């Protein structure tokens, strides 16, 4: 069942590739080339071979063409993009020659897929069970009763203990992980041979991601699936796949068995992906020293006995936090643990039910509207949103966005405004000429830096960052993390950094606070907590984080450590 049955290199220059195949590949892609309507080539010269039962991981940052390649295999290219050349053969049938009717008989039945954002693939107004039953009836032509039985069985197979309870629920009643399980059930309902999982676990918390990955791996064995796993995260892919293809800028830069790609990478790019992962992997031995002056200096931010929530529902309680100038505090917890609620309370977006928040000795909770606005205009406290694209006005240029807070502060001249925009952009490592661009014209990493630049333009004392790197690929993530660390060290900007990704916190935080069900369960120096977690919940979070194996993987290594 391992991919070693076939030792054919997935990417060999044209004309020189050997024709020795031990097993007829289930899927074979040759010279794939995808172009946009304006003539740009988005994917070029992609060759893939996948034997039946094999597992292939495709790794690359956003825009590397990994998703487009998968979409081409499913004939689901976005409008405006076309398959310019190359062949895709499945069970020795050329897929490019198929008409719409043949595709309907193939897609979702033989070839199936799971995508990143499960909620958007479910109809919000129909119970999930019924959607599953309808799909089963459509593809398997079963009777209503038989389809219902099959749906319940499938829900059980994807890990719902009480399938009958899930059946009548609407998509909004399910968590992201549960919705993804339902979609996996939908994907395998017709017993496909090939399953494509495109960033299927990216939007999930570490523990949930581990569970879903585990599920995919289990199903692969039990259902005899051939799997293509697409991710920006090398660690995720390396846990499940036998072979890995690394893509960049629409081309394959490296391909080979997982073990050799991870431990003997041939290309510099792959090496940088692995190194970048190591920078903020939990195993990092290079921990940060807490600032020496920390105990002496009075805390910049002090939160004591805080409780807050929405209406009568209390989300966080008994919160005591202190942040010293120049200190980075990592706030860890799963979705629903109250991390974001805590930040929003500090920002004054949610009123504190109990407790006090002071910044630099000044009380900042329970201010009147006018005093709150004055405090906000001072710029001392700045917030960096999780999704930079949504927190930038799409109609304003980068420069206009950055000067927004400055305009509110004081009437600066045009040249002073331009100078501060340039200074802010330079301080986050961006070209000042980007000031005239619109957010839509920037890459994800550039946008996140822009949002940080907007906060920096106001000369903040404390930055609150909500998952600032979760939407970024490995390379950009490590650049942004390094930038944040530098801001703390050189400009003394204290930061509270929310993340469900322990790796990124471990890389830069001085101290971490672990939140669970709205309460702090553990706190201490980052290195201490991550190396020797005291609380079982912290241990569980740590165990769930994906990592690149240090040793050569054994043939039948357990996918995840149990927790």
């Amino acid at each position: 069942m391992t991919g070693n049955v076939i030792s054919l290199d997935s990417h060999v220059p044209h004309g020189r590739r050997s024709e020795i195949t031990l097993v007829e590949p289930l899927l074979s892609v040759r010279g794939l080339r995808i172009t946009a309507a304006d003539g740009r080539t988005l994917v070029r010269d992609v060759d893939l071979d996948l034997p039946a039962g094999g597992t292939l991981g495709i790794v690359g940052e956003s825009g590397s063409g990994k998703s487009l390649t998968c979409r081409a295999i499913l004939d689901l290219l976005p409008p405006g993009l076309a398959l310019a050349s190359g062949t895709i053969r499945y069970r020795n049938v050329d897929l490019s020659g198929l008409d719409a009717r043949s595709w309907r008989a193939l897609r979702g039945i033989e070839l199936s897929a799971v995508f990143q954002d499960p909620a958007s693939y479910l109809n919000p107004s129909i119970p999930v069970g019924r959607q599953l039953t309808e799909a089963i009836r459509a593809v398997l032509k079963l009777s209503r009763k038989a389809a219902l039985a099959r749906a319940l069985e499938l829900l059980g197979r994807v890990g719902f203990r009480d399938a009958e309870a899930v059946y009548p629920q609407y998509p909004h009643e399910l968590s992201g992980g549960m919705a993804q399980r339902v979609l996996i059930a939908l994907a395998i309902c017709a017993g496909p041979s090939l399953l494509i999982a495109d960033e299927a676990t990216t939007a999930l918390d570490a523990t949930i991601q581990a569970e879903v990955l585990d599920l995919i791996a289990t199903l692969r064995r039990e259902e005899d699936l051939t799997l293509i796993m697409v991710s920006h995260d090398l660690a995720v892919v390396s846990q499940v796949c036998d072979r890995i293809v690394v893509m960049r800028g629409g081309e394959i830069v490296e391909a080979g068995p997982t073990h050799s790609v991870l431990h003997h990478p041939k290309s510099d790019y792959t090496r940088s992906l692995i190194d970048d992962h190591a920078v903020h992997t939990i195993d990092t031995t290079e921990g940060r020293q807490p600032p020496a002056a920390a105990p002496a200096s009075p805390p910049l931010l002090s939160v004591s006995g805080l409780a807050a929530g929405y209406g009568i529902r209390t989300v966080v309680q008994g919160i005591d936090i202190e942040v010293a100038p120049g200190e980075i505090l990592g706030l860890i917890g799963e979705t629903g643990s109250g991390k974001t609620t805590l930040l929003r309370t500090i920002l004054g977006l949610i009123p504190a039910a109990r407790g006090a928040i002071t910044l630099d000795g000044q009380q900042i909770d329970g201010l009147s509207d006018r005093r709150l606005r004055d405090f906000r205009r001072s710029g001392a406290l700045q917030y960096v949103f999780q999704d930079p694209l949504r927190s930038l006005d799409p109609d304003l240029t980068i420069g206009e966005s950055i000067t927004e807070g400055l305009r509110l502060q004081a009437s600066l001249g045009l040249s002073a405004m331009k100078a501060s925009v340039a200074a802010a952009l330079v301080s986050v490592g961006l070209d000042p000429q980007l000031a005239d661009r619109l957010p839509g014209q920037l890459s994800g990493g550039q946008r996140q830096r822009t949002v940080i630049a907007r906060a920096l333009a106001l000369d903040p004392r404390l930055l609150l960052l909500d998952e600032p790197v979760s939407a970024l690929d490995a390379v950009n993530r490590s650049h942004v993390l390094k930038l944040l660390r530098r801001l703390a060290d050189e400009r003394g900007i204290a930061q509270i950094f929310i993340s469900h990704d322990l790796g990124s916190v471990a890389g830069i935080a001085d101290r971490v606070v672990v939140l669970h069900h709205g309460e702090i369960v553990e706190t201490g120096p980052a290195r201490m907590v991550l190396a020797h977690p005291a609380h079982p919940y912290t241990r569980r979070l740590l165990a769930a984080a994906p990592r690149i194996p240090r040793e050569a993987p054994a043939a039948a290594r357990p996918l995840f450590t149990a927790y």
Partner: protein
Amino acid sequence: MIRHVLRYPSARAACLILGVVAVLATAGPALAPHDPLAQDTAALLQGPSAVHWLGTDALGRDVFSRLLAGSTVSVLASLLSVAVGLLLGVVPGLLSVFLGKRFEWINLRLIDALMMLPFLVFAIAMTAMLGNGLVQAMFAVGILITPVFFRVSRAAALSVANAEYIEAARLMGASTASVIRRHVLRKVVPAVAVSAASMTGACLSIVASLTFLGIGVVPPDPTWGGLLATDLANLYDRPFGPIAPALLIVATVWALNALADAMRDTGTDNKEKPA
């Protein structure tokens, strides 16, 4: 935006027609070959000729001159209605999103009440109350089209009111006024422009209907709708009479609607374009 709109052939034709109408509205009376009010009892109800391009009416007045002279009033009247509607609709429409629940509720109920009123009847009642003048009538029409602008601007503002970049602006201490000015207005203007264009067309036909009924304009003064009415009265003698004023009204209304459609299509096209 303008360049995008002009990619549509229908929009180019519409702009051409509207350009001609604009010339008529500004310079119409000056361009008229005859005095629109001068009666020539020697030439009643004539057909088109070299002297009278569109013939003469029952009092011997030159129809072409009357059509040109009537343009100013007809066009200005519809623009007045739209201006009133914009002012009374867009401002509360935007504020209803940002000024709290109570303000929102009162506004919504007022707009609901306005939407019940029938156009022509309300306009006729207003002129009966305030005196028979076109300004009074068009003011009434302006009030009646307020709900359109209210709804459109409110919907556009609602779609961005919860955007994260607005929350980001608030966190930097932005007031409601500056949030609307910097972030909301840009999203609202295209939608409002589309309905302004189509509403101008609608108002033009309302002006025509009102003046056709003899409301708002005292008899000797010419308007497009008034011409249509006198032409219809003499249909037996001048069967082709109503064609010219009717064509002018139809062409202008069509042009405004075509322009509105083109603007709407460019708006959606731009949105569909991937980032």
